[in-house]
């Protein structure tokens, strides 16, 4: 395996893109990447191993494992010259298929000497027996069931029921591989992944039309016009398309008088030349396509199969083209897009880190701290309220200041204030109470005195009195004077006058005057508070406590997240843009690839294959979907990490890197020599292009082989019986016929009769040498 690393992670991304493309509707139809010119002067080598196996996939020879390796070389060069091409070849009994004799082998190479004709063209073909102890990179296993029970294919012959056939091609090239990649963080790193040499598996068989309800799964079926379903399957047994490096396919049907037809299964390694010039790579791609297209199936395959082969070849070609550098290389755009994505992602991380930086006074952490302080203060106050007894006081107040009392107080406001305003007068009245009582007690005498003093023309009392003597006399003689005197001298009035004259009363009157407008609403409020406040306090305390706890945790998380994000973000770019949608990135990537030449070729190939092989698209699509899901999951993980501050963002990066490394391993493995005997393409003779394949030729399971021995024995018996009967029954007649013929010959000279008779005589038993 090569350690080539020059391409960096361009190749893996390319493969990701190629496989992802299957997700999208085809936009570039099969315009055709058909060659219009031959390659430049080069030698082409195709080498395949044809493995003869029984219907169950086991070798069909007991003493010898018949695995024939065939090599075909097409050489071009100077006309009428001779070229020598060395091809890795360790097989036994190596001999030419174009001439008599063997082909010399040196140091594991077959040395092919090829005469070029006058046009500068020559070919060589050989066959050898693949070394018995050498392993193959692919393995075939065939399993059958009858009505759900496993059964040997030969035992299945002639049975009726539901038959299933499952063929498993296992890629045995899986190996642990250290792949250098550029991490999404921009760091150069190396990851160890399991990688397979990519193989394209194509299988073809002819299933009898009598197979009822035939289900071929991903296989495509057509009619061969001879009562058979012509079925073709395509499989891709390599990671990450196949977790275990297998391709499985098969069929199920309700079968009467069962047989298992023969099958041809090809496993074609995808080979991408490494480090070659663009022209050579292009030529190699053509060579790879040739190897695929020129490989069997049988010559009577339908146009569908040819289309499928061409489509697969286009996919391979497109993959190779996409891995080429220079020009409008979509890989660079792809690389840029992916880098942009992660760069912007990193920027966002940095922005987020700054946002949650505890040292940022405007940051979220500081705001959380401030909020936490407010909540703490509120909690203290609420606690104080709860513990102060004010609630009880409010209850008492509410009991006292009922709305009725409030109304009464309001009504009393005016008279009380009047009292307060006249407090001095009332005090004077109180002080004059004794005098007034004296007047009341002597009212009659005073009235008499008034009368007398005002009598005559020269009254003795002043005119002011006399002018009002009637009113005065009436007042003095009235009961009201007596009552007033009594009231004023009542101790309660005296006490009331005293109170009214106190400053407290004045203040109370003033306060009442001020409170009067709000007494009724206050009473209502007290009533409400008395009803609601205990519940509010009871509820508010735990809420505030919870908020305080959350804020405390949030602050801790934010501080921790800030540290993590800062570490991650430091490795990324400094641009400050929004985190792009991953869907948009994938769409951009896909569009760029689709717009490229290689992308169109691949898409066209897929479309062509899809015309017959939906299985390919399904598998690629499944992988693409899986990839998208993985990336979406990665995005979700990132989002979750940012949101919660608890997810390890490093795991997301590791996942992305692993994905890159897996595809890098796949493409790196595709640099493996496709030849069955290995051989570094870089060591191949200049201008030599290599291609290879493995072909399982699966024998049928039917009555033919089991019937052969009894058939031969019966045949020998027939021949012997017929011979003995002939000798016994015809031999005696020959004697008589010869006699008759002899007589006829004696009686006539006709030459014709002599001819017949002569033969007869010659064939008389005992007439010749002993048999």
């Amino acid at each position: 395996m090569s350690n080539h690393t020059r391409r960096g992670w361009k190749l893996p991304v390319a493969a990701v893109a190629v496989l992802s493309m299957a997700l999208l509707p085809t936009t570039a139809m099969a315009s055709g990447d058909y060659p219009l010119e031959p390659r430049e002067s080069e030698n082409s080598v195709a080498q395949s191993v044809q493995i003869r196996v029984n219907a169950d996939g086991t070798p069909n020879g007991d003493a010898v494992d018949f695995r024939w390796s065939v090599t075909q070389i097409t050489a071009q060069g100077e006309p009428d010259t001779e070229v020598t091409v060395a091809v890795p070849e360790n097989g036994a009994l190596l001999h030419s298929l174009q001439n008599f004799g063997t082909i010399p082998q040196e140091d594991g190479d077959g040395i092919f000497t090829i005469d070029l004709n006058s046009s500068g063209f020559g070919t060589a073909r050989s066959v050898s027996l693949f070394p018995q102890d050498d392993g193959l990179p692919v393995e075939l296993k065939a399993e059958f069931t009858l009505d759900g029970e496993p059964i040997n294919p030969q035992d299945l012959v002639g049975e009726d029921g539901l038959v299933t056939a499952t063929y498993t091609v296992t890629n045995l090239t899986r190996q642990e591989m250290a792949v250098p990649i550029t991490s999404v963080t921009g760091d150069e790193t190396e990851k160890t992944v399991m990688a397979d040499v990519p193989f394209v598996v194509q299988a073809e068989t002819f299933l009898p039309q009598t197979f009822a309800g035939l289900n071929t799964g991903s296989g495509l079926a057509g009619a061969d016009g001879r009562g058979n379903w012509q079925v073709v399957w395509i499989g891709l047994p390599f990671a990450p398309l196949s977790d275990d490096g297998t391709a499985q396919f098969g069929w199920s049907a309700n079968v009467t008088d069962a047989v298992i037809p023969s099958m041809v299964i090809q496993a074609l390694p995808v080979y991408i030349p490494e480090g070659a010039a663009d022209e050579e790579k292009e030529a190699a791609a053509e060579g790879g396509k040739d190897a695929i297209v020129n490989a069997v199936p049988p010559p009577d395959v339908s146009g569908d199969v040819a289309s499928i082969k061409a489509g697969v070849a286009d996919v391979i070609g497109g993959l190779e083209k996409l891995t080429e550098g220079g020009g409008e290389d979509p890989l660079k755009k792809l690389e840029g897009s992916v880098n942009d994505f992660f760069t912007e992602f990193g920027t966002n991380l940095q922005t987020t880190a700054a946002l949650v930086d505890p040292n940022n006074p405007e940051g979220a952490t500081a705001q959380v701290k401030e909020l936490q302080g407010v909540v703490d203060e509120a909690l203290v106050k609420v606690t104080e309220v709860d513990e102060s007894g004010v609630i009880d006081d409010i209850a008492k107040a509410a009991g006292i200041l009922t709305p009725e009392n409030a109304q009464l107080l309001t009504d009393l406001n005016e008279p009380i204030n009047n009292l307060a305003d006249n407090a001095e007068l009332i005090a004077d009245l109180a002080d004059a109470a004794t005098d007034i009582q004296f007047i009341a007690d002597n009212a009659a005498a005073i009235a008499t005195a008034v009368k007398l003093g005002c009598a005559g023309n020269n009254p003795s009392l002043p005119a002011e009195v006399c002018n009002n003597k009637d009113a005065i006399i009436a007042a003095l003689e009235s009961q009201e004077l007596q009552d007033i005197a009594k009231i004023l001298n009542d101790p309660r009035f005296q006490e009331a006058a005293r109170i009214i004259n106190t400053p407290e009363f004045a203040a109370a009157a003033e306060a009442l005057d001020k409170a009067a407008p709000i007494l009724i609403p206050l009473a209502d409020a007290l009533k409400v508070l008395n009803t609601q406040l205990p519940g509010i306090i009871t509820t508010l305390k735990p809420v505030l406590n919870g908020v305080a706890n959350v804020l405390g945790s949030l602050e801790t998380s934010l501080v921790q997240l800030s540290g993590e994000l800062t570490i991650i973000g430091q490795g990324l770019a400094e641009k400050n843009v929004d985190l792009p949608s991953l869907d948009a990135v994938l769409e951009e990537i896909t569009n760029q690839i689709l717009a490229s030449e290689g992308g169109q070729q691949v898409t066209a190939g897929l479309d062509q294959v899809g015309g017959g092989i939906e299985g390919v698209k399904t598998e690629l699509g499944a992988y693409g979907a899986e990839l998208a899901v993985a990336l979406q999951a990665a995005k979700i993980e990132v989002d979750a990490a940012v949101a919660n501050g608890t997810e390890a963002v490093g795991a997301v990066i590791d996942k992305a890197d692993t994905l890159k490394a897996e595809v890098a391993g796949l493409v790196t493995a595709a640099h493996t020599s496709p030849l069955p005997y290995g051989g570094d393409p870089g060591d191949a003779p200049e201008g030599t292009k290599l291609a290879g394949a493995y072909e399982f030729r699966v024998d049928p399971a039917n009555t033919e082989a089991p019937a052969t021995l009894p058939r031969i024995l019966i045949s020998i018996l027939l021949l012997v019986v017929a011979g003995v009967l002939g000798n016994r029954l015809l031999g005696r007649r020959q004697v008589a016929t010869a006699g008759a013929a002899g007589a006829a010959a004696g009686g006539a000279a006709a030459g014709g009769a002599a001819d017949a008779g002569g033969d007869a005589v010659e064939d008389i038993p005992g007439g010749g040498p002993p048999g």
Partner: protein
Amino acid sequence: MGRIWALAGGMILGLLIILLLGPLGGLELQLTSALCVGAGAAAAYLGSPSHMLARGLWLLVGVLLGALGFALAAMIYPDTKIGLFLGGAVPITLTALATMWTRRQVDFLCGVLASGALAGVYATRFDFDPQSLNYSLPIAIGQTLLPLGLGFLAAVLIQTFLPTDDEAAAEKAAEAPTADPADTAQDAGDPADVGSATTTEATQ
């Protein structure tokens, strides 16, 4: 019944037996069975009816030599026009070498007929199976021998009650010594000659 129809009937009967044998008969190659049945019958009719056991055995040997020729083609011959030529020429040569000591052309012809029949069967078989010599060739041998044997047996049995062309010509010549031999041979196929079997048997 004319001798031709009797022979045709015998061969068709042989094909019918193969059909009735079902899987043992090898239904896939029913068509090529006609070639083998004919070859077997031809072997029985070569020259005068003698050395039938030897003919039967040489049919068997011819099939084996034909198979050997294909095996050699697969292992040694080049896959070219020369190789294809050798695929036909070598079995003939081997058959000639093997039968040379018998000094009977009929043995050689039996061998060549059989190896030719095998070539026809195997060429067809080659297209049916995934080109696996060790699997297909034994099947081809069996599917060649069975109709060969049936055709050979049918022809032998027919000859026991119907004269061959030569015998009929000889009888004609014996009955009319002055008759033109050509006319005699032509008349041998007439239905009226059916009764000559009785005549032949009477001579035994």
